[in-house]
Protein backbone atom coordinates (compact mmCIF):
# COMPACT_ATOMS: atom_id res chain seq x y z
CA UNK A 1 0.00 0.00 0.00
CA UNK A 2 1.22 3.48 -0.79
CA UNK A 3 1.86 5.69 2.21
CA UNK A 4 -0.70 8.21 0.99
CA UNK A 5 -3.42 5.59 0.95
CA UNK A 6 -2.36 4.33 4.39
CA UNK A 7 -2.65 7.83 5.78
CA UNK A 8 -6.09 8.40 4.27
CA UNK A 9 -7.30 5.03 5.57
CA UNK A 10 -6.04 5.88 9.04
CA UNK A 11 -7.61 9.32 8.88
CA UNK A 12 -10.96 7.98 7.74
CA UNK A 13 -10.77 5.22 10.34
CA UNK A 14 -10.13 7.85 13.03
CA UNK A 15 -12.99 10.03 11.90
CA UNK A 16 -15.50 7.22 11.82
CA UNK A 17 -14.27 5.81 15.12
CA UNK A 18 -14.88 9.09 17.00
CA UNK A 19 -18.66 9.28 16.69
CA UNK A 20 -18.72 5.55 17.43
CA UNK A 21 -16.91 6.19 20.71
CA UNK A 22 -19.19 9.07 21.61
CA UNK A 23 -22.29 6.94 21.22
CA UNK A 24 -20.89 4.30 23.53
CA UNK A 25 -20.80 6.82 26.38
CA UNK A 26 -23.53 7.19 28.95
CA UNK A 27 -23.81 10.13 31.31
CA UNK A 28 -25.79 11.36 34.29
CA UNK A 29 -25.66 14.41 36.55
CA UNK A 30 -28.38 13.29 38.92
CA UNK A 31 -27.16 9.89 40.02
CA UNK A 32 -27.82 8.77 43.54
CA UNK A 33 -25.36 7.58 46.16
CA UNK A 34 -26.47 6.85 49.69
CA UNK A 35 -24.64 5.49 52.68
CA UNK A 36 -25.77 3.76 55.77
CA UNK A 37 -23.96 3.43 59.05
CA UNK A 38 -25.52 0.94 61.43
CA UNK A 39 -24.56 0.63 65.09
CA UNK A 40 -26.55 -0.65 68.07
CA UNK A 41 -26.86 2.96 69.28
CA UNK A 42 -27.79 4.81 66.13
CA UNK A 43 -28.45 4.31 62.43
CA UNK A 44 -27.30 7.09 60.15
CA UNK A 45 -28.35 7.42 56.55
CA UNK A 46 -27.55 10.09 54.02
CA UNK A 47 -28.43 10.46 50.37
CA UNK A 48 -26.86 12.41 47.54
CA UNK A 49 -28.79 12.99 44.30
CA UNK A 50 -26.14 15.13 42.62
CA UNK A 51 -23.72 12.44 41.50
CA UNK A 52 -22.10 12.94 38.12
CA UNK A 53 -21.14 9.71 36.35
CA UNK A 54 -19.94 8.55 32.96
CA UNK A 55 -19.72 5.02 31.61
CA UNK A 56 -18.07 4.07 28.34
CA UNK A 57 -19.44 0.65 27.40
CA UNK A 58 -17.01 0.39 24.50
CA UNK A 59 -13.84 0.64 26.55
CA UNK A 60 -15.34 -0.38 29.89
CA UNK A 61 -14.25 2.86 31.57
CA UNK A 62 -16.31 4.27 34.41
CA UNK A 63 -16.01 7.53 36.35
CA UNK A 64 -17.90 9.28 39.13
CA UNK A 65 -17.77 12.62 40.82
CA UNK A 66 -19.67 13.22 44.05
CA UNK A 67 -20.10 16.72 45.54
CA UNK A 68 -19.77 16.02 49.28
CA UNK A 69 -22.07 18.87 50.29
CA UNK A 70 -24.84 17.16 48.34
CA UNK A 71 -25.34 14.54 51.05
CA UNK A 72 -28.65 15.11 52.80
CA UNK A 73 -29.03 13.85 56.34
CA UNK A 74 -32.29 13.61 58.28
CA UNK A 75 -30.70 15.74 61.02
CA UNK A 76 -29.22 19.09 60.14
CA UNK A 77 -26.66 18.83 62.92
CA UNK A 78 -25.36 15.51 61.55
CA UNK A 79 -25.03 17.07 58.13
CA UNK A 80 -23.05 19.94 59.64
CA UNK A 81 -20.74 17.57 61.50
CA UNK A 82 -20.29 15.42 58.40
CA UNK A 83 -19.20 18.40 56.31
CA UNK A 84 -17.28 20.29 58.98
CA UNK A 85 -15.54 17.56 60.92
CA UNK A 86 -15.51 14.28 59.11
CA UNK A 87 -15.10 14.72 55.36
CA UNK A 88 -14.07 18.42 55.54
CA UNK A 89 -16.08 19.41 52.48
CA UNK A 90 -14.53 22.87 52.21
CA UNK A 91 -11.08 21.32 51.84
CA UNK A 92 -12.15 18.24 49.88
CA UNK A 93 -15.34 19.21 48.05
CA UNK A 94 -15.53 16.05 45.94
CA UNK A 95 -15.17 12.31 46.12
CA UNK A 96 -14.22 10.71 42.81
CA UNK A 97 -13.92 7.29 41.31
CA UNK A 98 -12.12 6.39 38.14
CA UNK A 99 -11.91 2.78 37.05
CA UNK A 100 -12.53 0.05 34.56
CA UNK A 101 -14.85 -2.93 34.27
CA UNK A 102 -12.84 -6.08 34.86
CA UNK A 103 -12.60 -8.49 31.88
CA UNK A 104 -14.95 -6.32 29.88
CA UNK A 105 -15.96 -6.76 26.26
CA UNK A 106 -18.69 -4.56 24.79
CA UNK A 107 -20.50 -7.74 23.79
CA UNK A 108 -20.90 -8.63 27.48
CA UNK A 109 -23.69 -6.08 27.84
CA UNK A 110 -26.95 -7.97 27.40
CA UNK A 111 -29.97 -6.31 25.83
CA UNK A 112 -32.22 -7.48 28.66
CA UNK A 113 -31.65 -8.09 32.34
CA UNK A 114 -28.84 -6.92 34.60
CA UNK A 115 -25.29 -8.07 34.05
CA UNK A 116 -23.10 -8.63 37.08
CA UNK A 117 -19.73 -6.93 36.77
CA UNK A 118 -16.64 -6.16 38.79
CA UNK A 119 -15.15 -2.69 38.72
CA UNK A 120 -11.60 -1.89 39.68
CA UNK A 121 -10.27 1.61 40.09
CA UNK A 122 -9.19 4.52 42.25
CA UNK A 123 -11.62 5.79 44.86
CA UNK A 124 -10.75 9.20 46.29
CA UNK A 125 -12.48 10.38 49.45
CA UNK A 126 -11.24 13.10 51.83
CA UNK A 127 -8.17 13.55 49.65
CA UNK A 128 -7.07 9.93 50.07
CA UNK A 129 -6.95 7.63 47.05
CA UNK A 130 -7.34 3.86 47.39
CA UNK A 131 -7.40 1.13 44.81
CA UNK A 132 -10.69 -0.72 45.21
CA UNK A 133 -12.53 -3.55 43.51
CA UNK A 134 -16.31 -3.59 43.91
CA UNK A 135 -19.19 -5.61 42.48
CA UNK A 136 -22.09 -4.08 40.60
CA UNK A 137 -24.61 -4.57 37.84
CA UNK A 138 -25.15 -2.95 34.46
CA UNK A 139 -28.49 -3.04 32.71
CA UNK A 140 -29.64 -1.66 29.40
CA UNK A 141 -33.17 -0.30 29.69
CA UNK A 142 -34.43 1.28 26.51
CA UNK A 143 -31.65 3.66 25.55
CA UNK A 144 -30.63 4.20 29.18
CA UNK A 145 -27.94 2.39 31.10
CA UNK A 146 -28.69 1.49 34.71
CA UNK A 147 -25.73 1.10 37.05
CA UNK A 148 -26.06 -0.34 40.54
CA UNK A 149 -23.48 -1.15 43.12
CA UNK A 150 -23.23 -1.82 46.81
CA UNK A 151 -19.98 -1.87 48.72
CA UNK A 152 -18.42 -1.01 52.05
CA UNK A 153 -16.11 1.87 52.87
CA UNK A 154 -14.16 2.14 56.11
CA UNK A 155 -13.86 5.82 57.16
CA UNK A 156 -10.51 5.04 58.81
CA UNK A 157 -9.02 4.03 55.42
CA UNK A 158 -9.60 7.58 54.19
CA UNK A 159 -8.16 9.33 57.25
CA UNK A 160 -11.62 10.31 58.46
CA UNK A 161 -11.16 10.78 62.16
CA UNK A 162 -14.00 9.98 64.49
CA UNK A 163 -13.77 11.39 68.01
CA UNK A 164 -13.79 8.89 70.88
CA UNK A 165 -17.08 10.19 72.26
CA UNK A 166 -19.10 9.21 69.20
CA UNK A 167 -16.99 6.24 68.14
CA UNK A 168 -19.76 3.84 69.15
CA UNK A 169 -22.34 5.71 67.10
CA UNK A 170 -20.55 5.58 63.77
CA UNK A 171 -19.94 2.26 62.07
CA UNK A 172 -16.37 1.12 61.36
CA UNK A 173 -17.56 0.17 57.91
CA UNK A 174 -20.22 2.17 56.10
CA UNK A 175 -22.43 0.62 53.40
CA UNK A 176 -22.49 2.64 50.20
CA UNK A 177 -25.23 2.15 47.61
CA UNK A 178 -24.86 3.54 44.09
CA UNK A 179 -27.84 3.93 41.79
CA UNK A 180 -27.44 5.57 38.40
CA UNK A 181 -29.64 5.94 35.36
CA UNK A 182 -27.36 7.19 32.59
CA UNK A 183 -28.52 8.61 29.30
CA UNK A 184 -26.55 8.30 26.05
CA UNK A 185 -24.05 11.11 25.76
CA UNK A 186 -25.02 13.63 23.07
Amino acid at each position, binding site marked *: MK*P*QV*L*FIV*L*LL*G*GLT*ALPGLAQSKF*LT*RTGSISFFSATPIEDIEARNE*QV*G*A*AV*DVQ*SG*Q*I*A*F*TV*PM*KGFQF*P*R*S*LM*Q*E*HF*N*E*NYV*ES*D*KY*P*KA*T*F*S*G*TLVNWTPAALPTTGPQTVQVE*GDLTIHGVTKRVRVPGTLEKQGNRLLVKSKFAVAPADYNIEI*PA*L*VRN*QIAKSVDVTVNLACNPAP
Partner: protein
Amino acid sequence: MISISTLWRVAGGLAAVLLLTPVHTQAQDLLNQLESQSTDSLRREYVTATFKGTRVINGHSIETPGKGSLVFLISHRFGTLNSGAYEFFGLDQATIRLGLEYGLTNNLAVGVGRSSLEKTYDGFVKYKAVRQSSGPRAMPISVTLLATSAVSTLKFEPQPERSTTSRFTYTYQALLARKFSSNLSVQLMPTLVHRNYVALRRDENDVYAIGAAARQKLTKRLALTAEYYYLLPGATADDYRNSLAVGFDIETGGHVFQLHFTNSQGMIEKFFVPQTTGNFFDGDIYFGFNISRAFQLRN
Protein backbone atom coordinates in the same frame (compact mmCIF):
# COMPACT_ATOMS: atom_id res chain seq x y z
CA MET B 1 16.08 17.20 0.40
CA ILE B 2 13.20 15.34 1.98
CA SER B 3 10.91 13.63 -0.48
CA ILE B 4 7.13 14.01 -0.46
CA SER B 5 6.71 10.33 0.26
CA THR B 6 8.80 10.63 3.44
CA LEU B 7 6.57 13.47 4.60
CA TRP B 8 3.49 11.35 4.03
CA ARG B 9 5.05 8.50 5.91
CA VAL B 10 5.83 10.72 8.89
CA ALA B 11 2.34 12.21 8.84
CA GLY B 12 0.78 8.75 8.66
CA GLY B 13 2.89 7.56 11.55
CA LEU B 14 1.92 10.58 13.65
CA ALA B 15 -1.77 10.06 12.90
CA ALA B 16 -1.49 6.42 13.91
CA VAL B 17 0.24 7.36 17.17
CA LEU B 18 -2.41 9.99 17.94
CA LEU B 19 -5.27 7.60 17.31
CA LEU B 20 -3.85 4.68 19.21
CA THR B 21 -2.26 6.12 22.39
CA PRO B 22 -5.10 7.12 24.74
CA VAL B 23 -6.01 3.58 25.83
CA HIS B 24 -4.48 3.34 29.31
CA THR B 25 -5.33 6.91 30.40
CA GLN B 26 -8.93 6.72 29.24
CA ALA B 27 -10.48 6.22 32.70
CA GLN B 28 -8.72 9.31 34.00
CA ASP B 29 -9.79 11.16 30.84
CA LEU B 30 -13.39 10.18 31.41
CA LEU B 31 -13.18 11.62 34.92
CA ASN B 32 -11.54 14.81 33.66
CA GLN B 33 -14.19 15.12 30.99
CA LEU B 34 -16.89 14.61 33.57
CA GLU B 35 -15.39 17.29 35.80
CA SER B 36 -14.81 19.76 32.99
CA GLN B 37 -18.48 19.51 32.03
CA SER B 38 -19.47 19.76 35.66
CA THR B 39 -22.32 22.08 36.49
CA ASP B 40 -21.33 22.23 40.17
CA SER B 41 -20.19 25.84 39.87
CA LEU B 42 -23.69 26.72 38.69
CA ARG B 43 -25.25 25.38 41.84
CA ARG B 44 -26.12 27.83 44.58
CA GLU B 45 -24.63 26.67 47.82
CA TYR B 46 -25.45 28.02 51.26
CA VAL B 47 -22.66 28.57 53.74
CA THR B 48 -23.20 26.49 56.87
CA ALA B 49 -21.79 26.48 60.39
CA THR B 50 -20.79 30.13 60.50
CA PHE B 51 -20.90 29.64 64.26
CA LYS B 52 -20.96 26.39 66.18
CA GLY B 53 -23.86 27.21 68.46
CA THR B 54 -26.94 29.39 68.55
CA ARG B 55 -24.99 31.69 70.93
CA VAL B 56 -21.63 33.27 70.32
CA ILE B 57 -21.09 33.63 74.09
CA ASN B 58 -23.76 35.67 75.85
CA GLY B 59 -25.61 36.86 72.79
CA HIS B 60 -27.18 35.08 69.86
CA SER B 61 -25.30 34.03 66.75
CA ILE B 62 -26.96 33.88 63.32
CA GLU B 63 -27.47 30.13 63.74
CA THR B 64 -30.83 28.54 64.47
CA PRO B 65 -31.63 24.90 65.24
CA GLY B 66 -32.50 23.02 62.02
CA LYS B 67 -36.04 22.02 61.22
CA GLY B 68 -37.53 19.73 63.86
CA SER B 69 -34.53 20.05 66.13
CA LEU B 70 -35.00 20.84 69.82
CA VAL B 71 -31.98 22.24 71.60
CA PHE B 72 -31.65 22.16 75.35
CA LEU B 73 -29.26 24.87 76.43
CA ILE B 74 -27.76 25.22 79.88
CA SER B 75 -25.92 28.48 80.51
CA HIS B 76 -24.08 29.02 83.72
CA ARG B 77 -22.01 31.84 85.21
CA PHE B 78 -20.02 31.64 88.42
CA GLY B 79 -19.17 34.67 90.57
CA THR B 80 -16.32 37.04 89.80
CA LEU B 81 -12.73 35.84 89.80
CA ASN B 82 -11.66 38.77 92.02
CA SER B 83 -14.07 37.85 94.85
CA GLY B 84 -11.16 36.16 96.61
CA ALA B 85 -10.40 32.87 98.29
CA TYR B 86 -13.35 33.22 100.69
CA GLU B 87 -15.77 32.93 97.75
CA PHE B 88 -13.44 30.37 96.14
CA PHE B 89 -12.75 32.89 93.35
CA GLY B 90 -16.39 33.01 92.37
CA LEU B 91 -17.12 29.31 92.25
CA ASP B 92 -19.32 29.58 95.37
CA GLN B 93 -21.86 31.64 93.49
CA ALA B 94 -23.78 30.76 90.41
CA THR B 95 -26.46 32.08 88.14
CA ILE B 96 -28.03 29.86 85.57
CA ARG B 97 -30.31 29.99 82.58
CA LEU B 98 -32.13 26.94 81.31
CA GLY B 99 -33.42 27.24 77.79
CA LEU B 100 -35.19 25.32 75.07
CA GLU B 101 -35.15 26.31 71.42
CA TYR B 102 -36.87 24.66 68.52
CA GLY B 103 -36.51 24.94 64.75
CA LEU B 104 -39.94 25.30 63.15
CA THR B 105 -38.29 25.41 59.74
CA ASN B 106 -34.65 25.57 58.73
CA ASN B 107 -34.90 29.36 58.90
CA LEU B 108 -37.35 30.04 61.73
CA ALA B 109 -36.84 29.18 65.38
CA VAL B 110 -38.53 29.95 68.67
CA GLY B 111 -37.18 29.62 72.17
CA VAL B 112 -37.94 30.03 75.84
CA GLY B 113 -35.71 30.32 78.86
CA ARG B 114 -35.60 31.01 82.52
CA SER B 115 -32.80 32.86 84.26
CA SER B 116 -32.21 32.66 87.99
CA LEU B 117 -31.10 36.30 87.85
CA GLU B 118 -34.17 38.38 88.83
CA LYS B 119 -36.26 35.21 88.28
CA THR B 120 -36.66 36.12 84.64
CA TYR B 121 -38.56 34.23 81.95
CA ASP B 122 -37.74 35.01 78.34
CA GLY B 123 -38.96 34.03 74.91
CA PHE B 124 -37.71 34.77 71.43
CA VAL B 125 -38.38 34.44 67.73
CA LYS B 126 -35.43 34.19 65.40
CA TYR B 127 -35.52 34.24 61.63
CA LYS B 128 -32.74 33.67 59.11
CA ALA B 129 -33.71 36.34 56.60
CA VAL B 130 -30.65 36.12 54.33
CA ARG B 131 -28.13 33.34 54.05
CA GLN B 132 -24.59 33.70 52.81
CA SER B 133 -24.15 31.65 49.65
CA SER B 134 -21.80 30.93 46.77
CA GLY B 135 -22.57 30.19 43.14
CA PRO B 136 -24.97 32.19 41.02
CA ARG B 137 -26.42 35.26 42.77
CA ALA B 138 -23.93 34.77 45.59
CA MET B 139 -24.75 36.50 48.86
CA PRO B 140 -21.78 37.86 50.82
CA ILE B 141 -23.39 37.87 54.27
CA SER B 142 -26.03 36.19 56.39
CA VAL B 143 -28.68 38.21 58.21
CA THR B 144 -30.72 36.83 61.08
CA LEU B 145 -33.42 38.87 62.81
CA LEU B 146 -34.09 38.37 66.48
CA ALA B 147 -36.88 39.64 68.73
CA THR B 148 -36.92 38.71 72.39
CA SER B 149 -39.02 39.59 75.38
CA ALA B 150 -38.16 39.04 79.01
CA VAL B 151 -40.32 39.29 82.10
CA SER B 152 -38.91 39.56 85.58
CA THR B 153 -41.04 37.78 88.19
CA LEU B 154 -39.36 39.05 91.37
CA LYS B 155 -41.83 39.85 94.15
CA PHE B 156 -42.49 43.57 94.51
CA GLU B 157 -42.27 43.80 98.31
CA PRO B 158 -40.69 45.59 99.96
CA GLN B 159 -40.97 47.85 96.89
CA PRO B 160 -44.38 49.25 96.05
CA GLU B 161 -46.62 47.29 93.69
CA ARG B 162 -46.30 48.06 89.95
CA SER B 163 -48.17 47.04 86.85
CA THR B 164 -47.33 43.74 85.16
CA THR B 165 -46.38 45.68 82.01
CA SER B 166 -43.53 47.27 83.94
CA ARG B 167 -41.89 43.87 84.25
CA PHE B 168 -41.30 43.52 80.50
CA THR B 169 -38.18 44.24 78.46
CA TYR B 170 -37.88 43.76 74.72
CA THR B 171 -34.79 43.36 72.56
CA TYR B 172 -34.49 43.65 68.79
CA GLN B 173 -31.36 42.62 66.96
CA ALA B 174 -30.19 42.32 63.40
CA LEU B 175 -27.37 39.79 63.32
CA LEU B 176 -25.09 40.27 60.30
CA ALA B 177 -22.41 37.68 59.78
CA ARG B 178 -19.89 36.55 57.25
CA LYS B 179 -17.87 33.36 57.25
CA PHE B 180 -14.65 34.57 55.67
CA SER B 181 -13.08 31.14 55.61
CA SER B 182 -13.74 27.81 57.24
CA ASN B 183 -11.76 29.18 60.19
CA LEU B 184 -12.87 32.78 60.58
CA SER B 185 -16.39 34.11 61.06
CA VAL B 186 -17.31 37.66 62.03
CA GLN B 187 -20.64 39.04 63.18
CA LEU B 188 -22.08 42.52 63.80
CA MET B 189 -25.15 43.07 65.94
CA PRO B 190 -27.01 46.39 65.95
CA THR B 191 -29.19 46.13 69.05
CA LEU B 192 -32.12 47.92 70.66
CA VAL B 193 -33.20 47.09 74.19
CA HIS B 194 -36.51 48.61 75.26
CA ARG B 195 -37.35 48.60 78.94
CA ASN B 196 -40.94 49.36 79.89
CA TYR B 197 -39.84 50.43 83.36
CA VAL B 198 -36.62 51.98 84.61
CA ALA B 199 -35.96 52.74 88.27
CA LEU B 200 -34.52 56.24 87.91
CA ARG B 201 -35.54 59.26 85.88
CA ARG B 202 -32.09 59.46 84.27
CA ASP B 203 -32.20 55.83 83.11
CA GLU B 204 -33.06 55.28 79.47
CA ASN B 205 -36.02 53.22 78.34
CA ASP B 206 -34.42 52.63 74.96
CA VAL B 207 -30.81 51.54 74.95
CA TYR B 208 -28.93 51.27 71.67
CA ALA B 209 -25.79 49.22 71.23
CA ILE B 210 -23.67 47.73 68.50
CA GLY B 211 -22.13 44.36 69.06
CA ALA B 212 -19.25 42.67 67.31
CA ALA B 213 -18.24 39.05 67.57
CA ALA B 214 -15.81 36.65 65.97
CA ARG B 215 -14.87 33.04 65.90
CA GLN B 216 -11.44 31.79 64.94
CA LYS B 217 -10.91 28.06 64.75
CA LEU B 218 -7.70 26.88 66.34
CA THR B 219 -8.10 23.21 65.50
CA LYS B 220 -10.91 21.24 63.89
CA ARG B 221 -12.81 21.00 67.17
CA LEU B 222 -11.56 23.99 69.12
CA ALA B 223 -12.32 27.62 68.38
CA LEU B 224 -11.57 30.94 70.03
CA THR B 225 -14.55 33.27 70.35
CA ALA B 226 -14.95 36.89 71.38
CA GLU B 227 -17.93 39.18 71.76
CA TYR B 228 -18.24 42.86 72.57
CA TYR B 229 -21.26 45.13 72.90
CA TYR B 230 -20.59 48.85 72.54
CA LEU B 231 -23.26 51.06 74.17
CA LEU B 232 -23.99 54.11 72.04
CA PRO B 233 -23.32 57.37 73.96
CA GLY B 234 -26.04 58.17 76.49
CA ALA B 235 -26.89 57.83 80.15
CA THR B 236 -26.58 54.04 80.06
CA ALA B 237 -23.15 54.25 78.47
CA ASP B 238 -22.13 56.69 81.23
CA ASP B 239 -23.44 54.55 84.09
CA TYR B 240 -22.65 51.06 82.88
CA ARG B 241 -19.90 49.21 81.07
CA ASN B 242 -19.69 47.60 77.68
CA SER B 243 -20.06 43.86 77.76
CA LEU B 244 -16.95 41.91 76.83
CA ALA B 245 -16.56 38.17 76.62
CA VAL B 246 -13.88 35.81 75.38
CA GLY B 247 -14.06 32.07 75.29
CA PHE B 248 -13.54 28.73 73.65
CA ASP B 249 -15.92 26.53 71.71
CA ILE B 250 -15.09 22.89 72.21
CA GLU B 251 -16.87 20.37 70.08
CA THR B 252 -17.11 16.81 71.30
CA GLY B 253 -19.20 15.24 68.56
CA GLY B 254 -22.69 15.26 70.00
CA HIS B 255 -22.60 18.72 71.48
CA VAL B 256 -20.70 21.92 71.91
CA PHE B 257 -19.17 23.15 75.16
CA GLN B 258 -18.56 26.85 75.38
CA LEU B 259 -16.25 28.01 78.15
CA HIS B 260 -15.80 31.72 78.64
CA PHE B 261 -14.81 34.73 80.70
CA THR B 262 -17.04 37.78 80.72
CA ASN B 263 -17.76 40.91 82.72
CA SER B 264 -21.53 40.33 82.39
CA GLN B 265 -23.44 38.18 84.82
CA GLY B 266 -26.74 37.84 82.94
CA MET B 267 -27.16 35.60 79.95
CA ILE B 268 -29.98 37.41 78.14
CA GLU B 269 -29.84 40.72 76.29
CA LYS B 270 -31.73 42.74 78.91
CA PHE B 271 -28.97 41.98 81.40
CA PHE B 272 -25.74 42.01 79.48
CA VAL B 273 -26.42 44.90 77.09
CA PRO B 274 -27.66 47.69 79.41
CA GLN B 275 -26.79 46.35 82.87
CA THR B 276 -23.17 45.22 82.78
CA THR B 277 -21.28 46.65 85.73
CA GLY B 278 -18.14 44.55 85.89
CA ASN B 279 -14.78 45.99 84.92
CA PHE B 280 -13.11 43.21 82.99
CA PHE B 281 -9.62 44.58 83.54
CA ASP B 282 -10.14 44.95 87.31
CA GLY B 283 -10.90 41.25 87.53
CA ASP B 284 -14.72 41.50 87.65
CA ILE B 285 -14.74 38.46 85.46
CA TYR B 286 -17.39 35.81 85.55
CA PHE B 287 -16.25 32.39 84.47
CA GLY B 288 -19.02 30.45 82.79
CA PHE B 289 -20.10 27.85 80.29
CA ASN B 290 -22.87 26.98 77.87
CA ILE B 291 -23.73 23.39 77.07
CA SER B 292 -26.18 22.50 74.37
CA ARG B 293 -27.72 19.20 73.42
CA ALA B 294 -29.85 18.74 70.31
CA PHE B 295 -32.72 16.29 69.98
CA GLN B 296 -34.33 15.60 66.65
CA LEU B 297 -38.11 15.53 67.17
CA ARG B 298 -39.26 15.63 63.57
CA ASN B 299 -37.62 15.17 60.16
